[in-house]
């Protein structure tokens, strides 16, 4: 009886957390579309959306409504099931990563610790890589099921790009893991609460990780699976209405999650340096806001880069991935290992 009661509590707690986290990520992704347009406009000396609501803040709703009202089109010879599965998979993989991110320090509800993390698994980083690599299937399925040669080509390009940058991404994190000695994101964050942020120990690792994150999210300058000037409109060319919306939306969710991961791994997660709050509930809220602010900052940097740098050529992209980032990541590993050994002596 006792066991059962605890299980119920656990279930409710997690369900509430899942709903909250999903709605927050969807909300942030929605408003990123607005933010992206505003950032683009401001960088081009324009004003951007300002008609729907104050400052154009209702623009995402208007966009969503428009996407819902567009006509559903299926290419005549496409595989309908896979065609629908593609965008769902892209969205799903983008959302699933949020499960292992510690959003803040635990809340205290009637003497009971409620962790603000859906699953504190000790292989958090491995889980992230596992899920993120599934994102390729969303792209491949979309490209394949459209039964369009251009879409297929774009999907193949996107897949090879994502796979090559995942390698460099993984390698860039190994040095960090050598420092922290743990794969659990919670442990990594807590280690940073005592000392300094990981980015100070691993600047090269962070730069590599950041570039790879850009490529993983298919953001400019690495948006070659879109490449509308060579490949019509990339792997989602045949998609219309909300199916296209899902693909585009998944990109923004991805951006949010990878910004959160970057803030967690390299920038102390929910910690604010030299600030210690005694009350656990206040600490949790402030910490959550701190992580949120860091995440929003990274989202801004993503957009900033997008509206500054032109798209890479495909061979340049591959060369950067294989000839620059992977060797650099290996070098970073060697240096970190050597320093750790030297310190131990």
């Amino acid at each position, binding site marked *: 009886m006792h066991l059962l009661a605890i299980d119920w509590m656990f279930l409710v707690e997690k369900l509430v957390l899942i709903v909250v986290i999903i709605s927050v990520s969807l909300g942030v992704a929605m408003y990123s579309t607005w933010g992206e347009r505003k950032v683009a406009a401001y*960088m081009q000396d324009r004003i951007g959306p300002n008609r729907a609501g104050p400052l154009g803040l209702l623009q995402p709703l208007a966009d969503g409504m428009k996407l819902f009202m567009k006509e559903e089109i299926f290419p005549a010879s496409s595989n309908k099931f896979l065609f629908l599965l593609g965008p769902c998979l892209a969205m799903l993989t983008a959302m699933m990563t949020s499960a292992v991110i510690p959003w803040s320090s635990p809340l205290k509800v009637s003497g009971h610790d409620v962790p603000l993390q859906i699953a504190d698994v000790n292989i958090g980083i491995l889980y992230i890589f596992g899920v993120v690599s599934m994102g390729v299937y969303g792209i491949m399925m979309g490209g394949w099921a459209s039964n369009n040669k251009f879409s297929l080509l774009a999907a193949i390009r996107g897949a090879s790009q994502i796979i090559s940058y995942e390698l460099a991404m993984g390698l860039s994190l190994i040095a960090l893991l050598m420092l922290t000695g743990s794969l659990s994101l919670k442990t990594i964050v807590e280690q940073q609460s005592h000392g300094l942020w990981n980015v100070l120990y691993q600047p090269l690792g962070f730069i590599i990780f950041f570039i790879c994150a850009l490529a993983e999210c298919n953001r400019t300058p690495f948006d070659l699976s879109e490449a509308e000037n060579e490949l019509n409109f990339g792997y989602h060319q045949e998609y219309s209405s909300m199916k296209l919306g899902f693909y585009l939306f998944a990109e923004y969710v991805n951006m949010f999650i990878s910004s959160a991961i970057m803030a967690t791994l390299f920038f102390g997660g929910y910690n604010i340096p030299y600030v210690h709050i005694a009350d656990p509930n206040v600490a949790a809220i402030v910490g959550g806001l701190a992580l949120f602010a860091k995440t929003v900052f990274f989202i801004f940097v993503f957009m*900033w880069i997008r509206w*500054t740098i032109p798209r890479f050529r495909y061979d340049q992209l591959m060369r950067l991935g294989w000839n620059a980032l992977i060797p650099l990541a290996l070098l970073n590993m060697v240096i970190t290992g050597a320093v750790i050994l030297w310190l131990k002596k």
Partner: protein
Amino acid sequence: MNALTNKAKAVDRRPMTWLERIYLWNIAKGMAITLRHFFKKKATIKYPEEKRPFSPVFRGTQVLNRDEEGRERCTACGLCAVACPAEAITMEAAERKPGEEHLYREEKYAARYEINMLRCIFCGLCEEACPKDAIYLSETFAPANYQRKGFIYGKPELLIPDPKTQPEEYAKAKGQH
């Protein structure tokens, strides 16, 4: 060879330095430029609320003018229609009846006067041709309509408001000049 203007720039063909080759530094420079634009004054004019001031010779849609007493100036001579290179103007003349002297300035007037705005190229030749100072190109410039027939402007659309009975509308239609 002498350059015609002083705008020509010599192409820098020096090989890239190490700093330029690793590319990151130049990305940072580019990002600094875009960030600076982020805080610059915006060049946008929020159109329906703010309007761009026009030059005095701006040619917008036509108005049919009235004289100081509010009488229509046009005498339906047809010179504007002849001058129009796009053949956008048609009209029908009518004779002024006794008792209508306060409406029309001359004995002949245009009972129907139409300009097809889909044809008009806003050249202003009608304005130049008119001997009676009756047709002017105003500062209104954005005619919009849902149907083609809405673009055939008749007298109700063209005739300027009466300066005596509607002085405010008249001033507005006349613009600053």
